């Protein structure tokens, strides 16, 4: 009798553990609870007809919904010059071994080039089967090489899952920057954590544009906590485990968008967002860099006097912990931003950034950059 009790005791513990402590189950339970409580509410007032509108077309009367993008037809693989590619948030990973430049960004497809001039693509390089991200749009994809693996950091949006209703402002969808892994920069990249519901950041945070940065043997994800949810957007970091599968601490806020004088309030500059007159300050697209003199800096983007812009902050301690001091002016303020640095195989520091001319599409451009001093200096346009 005793033995039976003991056995059943163990069995019960295992079963209850499986039922209640299994992360997958727990997350699912939490999400069900959260979903039950959250109802979409009234959002910020709709944009005026004809108003400038980030993230969407010029709104018509009665607009004001943030709709997911419709699926697009599968593009043909072609070899094209850089200036014929339309892409937001371009990122280039130069692979020294293969001597190939890999270009990705929002949309998450891959282009390849050996000379930065002619690009072959777009290739589909990710496989998200079995995860909540499967079939969803990916923003601001980046490729990083850490150890002997390649990691793909991208931001997935699930507009069918509400994480918060910010009353009279915004129904916040699930947004997370997630990591995929592959043995080659060409993929196929698969989720680093196979769990269907896994999120790398806090699930009730609207997280975008996460990038990877290493300091003192710790890899950090530096990311944006979206202004749509918190009004004055922030830059934050979280340390990751050695295998990058999970965060080892809760996020730390580094700075707010409004701390930079060049970042302007969206309603004040007349910029609607997803068809809504949503007030606030934007943080976007962080990238960490070190100058040749050892100074730690961060490129990041926001909206300024002339629409999209990019500026720099420097860490006075030389560590990710800061304090971070903002440069007074944006170094790029002509409706360009979300630029990322890379070094050519010849050792030249370049910067790829998207620019919008008028109402045209976002197109990547290349610029030279000088990192020989304490501060990064934008050079001239680079034409490969």
């Amino acid at each position: 009798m005793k033995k039976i009790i003991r056995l059943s005791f163990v069995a019960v513990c295992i079963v209850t553990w499986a039922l209640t402590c299994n992360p997958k189950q727990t997350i699912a339970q939490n999400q069900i609870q959260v979903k039950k409580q959250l109802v979409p509410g009234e959002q910020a007032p709709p944009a005026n007809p004809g108003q400038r509108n980030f993230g969407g077309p010029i709104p018509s009367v009665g607009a004001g919904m943030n709709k997911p993008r419709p699926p697009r037809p599968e593009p043909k693989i072609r070899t094209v010059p850089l200036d014929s590619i339309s892409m937001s948030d371009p990122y280039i990973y130069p692979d020294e071994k293969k001597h190939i430049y890999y270009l990705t960004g929002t949309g998450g497809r891959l282009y390849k080039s050996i000379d930065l001039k002619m690009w072959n693509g777009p290739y589909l390089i990710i496989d998200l089967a079995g995860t909540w991200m499967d079939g969803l749009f990916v923003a601001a994809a980046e490729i990083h090489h850490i150890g002997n693996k390649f990691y793909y950091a991208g931001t997935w949006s699930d507009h069918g899952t509400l994480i918060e209703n910010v009353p009279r402002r915004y129904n916040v969808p699930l947004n997370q920057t997630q990591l995929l892994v592959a043995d080659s920069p060409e993929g196929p990249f698969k989720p680093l954590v196979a769990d269907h519901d896994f999120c790398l950041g806090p699930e009730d945070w609207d997280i975008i544009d996460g990038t990877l940065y290493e300091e003192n043997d710790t890899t950090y994800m530096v990311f944006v906590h979206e202004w749509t949810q918190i009004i004055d957007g922030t830059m934050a970091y979280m340390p990751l485990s050695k295998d990058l599968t999970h965060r080892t601490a809760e996020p730390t806020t580094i700075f707010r968008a409004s701390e930079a004088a060049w970042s302007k309030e969206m309603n004040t500059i007349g910029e609607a967002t997803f068809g809504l007159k949503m007030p606030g300050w934007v943080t976007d697209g962080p990238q960490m860099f070190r100058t040749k003199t050892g100074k730690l800096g961060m490129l990041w983007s926001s909206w300024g006097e002339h629409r999209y812009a990019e500026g720099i902050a420097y860490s006075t301690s030389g560590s990710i912990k800061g304090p971070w001091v903002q440069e007074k002016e944006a170094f790029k303020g002509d409706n360009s931003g979300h630029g990322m640095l890379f070094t050519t195989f010849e050792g030249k520091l370049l910067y790829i950034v998207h620019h919008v001319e008028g109402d045209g599409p976002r197109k990547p451009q290349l610029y030279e950059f000088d990192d020989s001093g304490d501060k990064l200096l934008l050079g001239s346009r680079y034409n490969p």
Partner: protein
Amino acid sequence: MTRIINISLAVFCFTMSVSLSGEAQTEVKKQLVPTVTIPAPPGSKGFGMPQPGKSGTIPAPRMIRVSASVTEQRQNKTILFDSISMSDPYILADDATKTYYLTGSGGCIYKSTDLKNWAGPYGAYDTRGTWMEGINFVAAAEIHKVNGKYYYAASFGDRKELVDVVPRRYNVYRHQTMILESDKAEGPFKLKNPDPNYDYLPHHLDIIDGTIYTEKGQAYMVFVNEWMQTFDGTMEYVKLSPDLSKTISEPVMLFRASESPCPLEMVGNGEMTYGLKLPGWVTDGPELFRTKTGKLGMLWASWGAKRYLECVAYSQSGTIDGPWIQEEKPFIGDNTGHGMLFRTFEGKLLLSIHHAEGEGPRKPQLWEVDDSGDKLVLGKRYIQ
């Protein structure tokens, strides 16, 4: 026997896992660490203080404050209305005593029979034995008569208890609008709720300027959730129990400051707040009214083109649930605001409101107001 053990174990394990979220919340409270704050840019105008203080510190009150507690010793005298300095003035015309009672920020009471000569200041409340005991400053006190009882609504701030931290912005200390009760307009007003630690609103919220409004026999507190905590200040309500001793509903948000074109963003408008760079939009001092034609409106205050100002909103439905439509132009806009209406014993509708000339002290003014049409119309200055 085994079954009983099974069930109790399962229940135990389940309870453990379910209670995790509750524990996490308690832990968060324990871990509140004050945040770094951002000093105001040089040359900012100083809301909340005449001189910029040391950055990042809470400024000392302008003068040594004697609280409005009835336990304080004070010298009463009769002074002219024009010689009173006071923010957020509120006048109750009490039919029972044929006396006008003036209170506001600071919380003391002045009495008058002619609106010209005022006797005071008198103590107002007795908060001994409650969390409010020892607080020496209350903001925006009001006296309302509801169902034969007198209610004193004022905002009490306890600088000792940190209730929320907004990273790189603001340390939120306990701040609640409390309703105290008395049989007489002159007090002493006491907490009716049996819990001496009672909060009318969630403990972690920064609540100010609550007022009392009755609609169809239901009493409401209409209040402000401070923009320092929420960036874009809100106007909200809760339902109160018949004796006004407690809250009986969840808060409902009516509007955000940025929905009105009158308030300007504080940092963009060059206003500092307590010496800090706090970007955002202010909601202040709600006062509900009904015009003679039955329209429901709300006066509320914010900061705009000429500093402090008074906004007006009207409820389309004629009920507190709105929707609330903001007027395009301020009701008064020359560094004047936080106005409150009352009717003289002769039946004249007056607005008591504070005005600051230059950096000078805030002084109450009286204005005539016409409520005979669908919209409130400001008349001329009323000189007693």
